[in-house]
């Protein structure tokens, strides 16, 4: 299966800008389906970005983060061609990991 994580990491001098888009329903637990039954909460709880074995950005998310979440941040110290590791875990224990090349 294709990865649920799409990442663009661009180094510009010392600063690398990272944009990530993840495919996930992010069900809040407050929405009803067509039969009027509540769709149980299903959302990413932790999203982590690691560079060189060190966390550069960690997100703790609740169900109020939009479906197919997007996040953008920047960090210092990486170079073009380096690897950035991205992983998430949701409230049902599912997870996904990918590695992106910084361009």
């Amino acid at each position: 299966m294709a990865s649920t994580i799409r990442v663009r990491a661009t180094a510009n001098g010392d600063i690398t800008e990272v944009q990530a888009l993840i495919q996930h329903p992010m069900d809040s637990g407050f929405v009803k389906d067509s039969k009027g039954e509540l769709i149980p909460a299903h959302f990413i709880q932790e999203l982590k970005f690691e560079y060189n074995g060190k966390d550069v950005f960690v997100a703790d998310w609740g169900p109020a983060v939009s479906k197919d979440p997007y996040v953008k941040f920047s960090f210092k110290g990486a170079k073009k061609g380096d690897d950035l590791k991205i992983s998430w875990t949701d409230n049902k224990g599912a997870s996904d990991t990918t590695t992106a090349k910084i361009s």
Partner: protein
Amino acid sequence: MTTTTGPHPTRRLILQGAASVALLGLGNLPFGATPARAAANDKYPEAAFRQKSEADAIKALYGKTAEPSDKVKLDAPEIAENGGVVPISVATTLDKVTSISFFVAENPNALAASYKIPEGTIPSVANRLKMAKTTNVIAIVEADGKLYSATKEVKVTVGGCGG
């Protein structure tokens, strides 16, 4: 920003209070609720995400209150047509930032997202949040152990939390 607890504190909050003064000898709650410094360690701040009001959520996440600061720049739309996807970002000129958190005041649970900012990461985050209705969005920046906030009202024409 008020520092008082709402008129109806949740049962969990009462339990936490009771446990912390060891009146009932309850021991640890299932998810080891230690409100102070919760954002600084690696554990998912489950207790903070369950609080209803933003004041309670801030207290559960950080164990202290925030002061408004013009050094926290909160960028959110005046009007969001779709409350399911509201682009919100925060940047700050403050030094020694360790975390940035987003709260939506009148969502069922106020805390939406909390980001740890390690040394070397720029204190600026953009994300997209759901908003149930027109209400305040609050960004909290933790810098050098203190909390700073910025608040902006976003008008929502179609809510993004209910059915």
